[in-house]
C-alpha cells in the first residue's frame, strides 16, 4: 500500500514538474518572441511573418497548458453558490456528480479534437511556411485529455473517500 502510494505521489510530482516546465518554456518563448518582433519592426523595419503565426499558436498553447495546470487543484472559474449551504456528506456527492460531468464533457471534447486534428492532417494544412498544422493543434486533444484524466482522478478519490464515510476537506 505504502509503496503504491509512493509511486502515485512520485507520479504526481513528476506531472507537476512537467506542467511547470511546459508553462515556463512557452511563456518565456512568448515574451522573448513578442519583444524581438518589436525590436525587429522598429529598428530593422521588418518582422518575421512566421513569428506572428507562431505567437498566436503559443497563446493557444499557454491557454490550454494553463487550463491543465488549473485542473490539478480544481481551480477553474466557477459559480458555486449552492454548494456552501449543503451538509458535508451531500457536498461530497455533489462534488462527485460535478466532477463526473466535467470529466465527461472533457472526454467528449477530446474525442472531437482528435477528429479535428485528423481532418487537418488529411487536408495537409500548413502553418508558418512549413509546419504541418496538425502538430501544434495536437495541444487540443492532449490538453483536454489531461483535464479529463485530472477530473476522473478526482472522482476516484472522492468515491474512495465516500466509501470510508469521509468528509470534504
Amino acid at each position, binding site marked *: 500500500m505504502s509503496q503504491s502510494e509512493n509511486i502515485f505521489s512520485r507520479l504526481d510530482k513528476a506531472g507537476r514538474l512537467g506542467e*511547470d516546465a511546459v508553462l515556463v518554456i512557452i511563456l518565456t518563448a*512568448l515574451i522573448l518572441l513578442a519583444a524581438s518582433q518589436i525590436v525587429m519592426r522598429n529598428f530593422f523595419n521588418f518582422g518575421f511573418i512566421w513569428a506572428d503565426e507562431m505567437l*498566436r499558436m503559443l*497563446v*493557444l498553447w499557454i*491557454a490550454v497548458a494553463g487550463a491543465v*495546470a488549473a485542473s490539478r487543484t480544481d481551480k*477553474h472559474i466557477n459559480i458555486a453558490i449552492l454548494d456552501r449551504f449543503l451538509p458535508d456528506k451531500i457536498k461530497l456527492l455533489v462534488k462527485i456528480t460535478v466532477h463526473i460531468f466535467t470529466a465527461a*464533457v472533457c472526454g467528449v471534447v477530446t474525442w472531437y479534437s482528435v477528429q*479535428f486534428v485528423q481532418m487537418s492532417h488529411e487536408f495537409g494544412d500548413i502553418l508558418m511556411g512549413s509546419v504541418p498544422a496538425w502538430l501544434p493543434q495536437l495541444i487540443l486533444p492532449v490538453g483536454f485529455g489531461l483535464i479529463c484524466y485530472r477530473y476522473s482522478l478526482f472522482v476516484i478519490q472522492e468515491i474512495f473517500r465516500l466509501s470510508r464515510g469521509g468528509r470534504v476537506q
Partner: protein
Amino acid sequence: MIAIGPLLILLALLGAPLFAVIAASAMWGFSKEGIDLQAIAIEFYGIAEMPILLAIPLFTFAGYLLSESGAPGRLVRLTQALLGWMPAGLAIVSLAACAFFTAFTGASGVTIIALGALLFPALQQAGYPEKFNLGLITSAGSLGLLFAPSLPLILYGIIAEISVEDLFLAGVLPGFLMLLMLSGYSVWKNRALRVPLSDFSWKEVRAAIREAAWEIPLPIVVLGGIYSGYFAISEAAAVTALYVLIVDVLILREIPLRKLPAVMRESMVLVGGILIILGMSLASTNYMIDAGIPQKLLGYISLFVTSQLTFLLLLLVFLLVLGAILDIFSAIVLVVPLILPVALQFGVNPVHLGIVFLATMQLGYITPPVGLNLFIASYRFERPIVELYLSTLPFFFILLISVAFIAFWPWLSLVLLG
C-alpha cells in the same frame, strides 16, 4: 445556455467549472442543429486566430511579478509623498495606489493581497476606524478596472470587436469619477480625523522617486506608447512583461530565479482559466447567434422597454445581479455578445456600453454573497465574511451612485474619443 435548460444551470450553481458548462451547452446546441461536434474544437481553435489575445498572458504575468516584488511598497511610498498632505491623506493614498496597481495587474484580486497587507496596518495605525479600513481596502481592490491597461477592458474590446484604444480613453474620466467620489466620502467620513498624514516635502518626493526609479518609466512608456499609437496593445504588453522581468529578477533581484516558475505557473493558471472559458464561449456564442437568440432577446425586451433610458436602467439592474454571481471575465465573454446587438438597437454607443458594463461588474467584486474581493479580504485579513459585507456597504452605495452617473451621462465616457 438559455435553451439547454435547468440541468446545466443547476450544475453551474453547484460548482461545475464554467468552461465545462458552456462546452456542454454549445455541444448540445450543435447536436440539436445537426452540426458535427468537431465544431467545438474548430471554434476553440479560434483562440489561435486572435492576435490581441497575446496581451492577456503577458500583462497577467507582469502583474503577478510586480505584486511579488517590492513595487507595491514603493508605489505606496511615492503616493504618500505626493498625496499624503491632504486631509484623510492616507485613505486617498490607499485609493489612488490601489487603482493604479489594479489597472496594471489586471483586476484579478492581487491588489488586495499585494497592497492591502501594506495599507491596512498603516490605516489602523493612523487611527482610522477598522470597519472603514476593511471596506476601503476591499472596495479599492477593483477600483482601477476602467484604467488602461486593465484586462477586462482589453477582453471587452476583443469580444465586442471595437478598438481597445478607444476603450482605454473612454475609461479615464469614469475611472476618475469613481476615485473622486470614494475620496470625497473618505474625507467626509473622517472629518474628525483631519490630521494630514504628513506635510508635503520635496525631499520625501525626491527620495520616493529615486527609490521607484525603475518602475516610474513603466507606466510612462506603456501608457504613452498606447495612447500615442506607437505601440499596439500586445506590443505594450510584451514590453511590460520583459521590462518587469529584467528589472525585478535581474537588476533589483527581488524575485529569486528559483521562485520564477511558481509565479509563472500561478499567473498562467489564471490565464488558462480565462481563455478556456473564452474558447468554449466562442462556440456557444456562435451557436446562439445562429439560433437568433439576440433577436429574440431584443423582441422580448422591446415589449417592455421603449426608450434608451429605461433600457439602461434595466441593464444596470441585470448587470448588478449578474455581477453578484458571475466573475467579470466570464460575464464579458458570455453576456456581451448577447446584449451588444440589443444595446445598439436602443442607440447605446458600444464603447459607452463597455464602460457601463465594466463599471457595474466592478460592483460585483464587492456584492454579497460571492463577490471575489470579499472572499480575498476575508481570507487575507482573517475576518468573517459577514463583517466584510457590512463594512463594504457604504462604499458599495457610493460606487453605485457613480455607476448611475456613468450610465446616464455618456458624455463622460465618450468626450475623450473626440
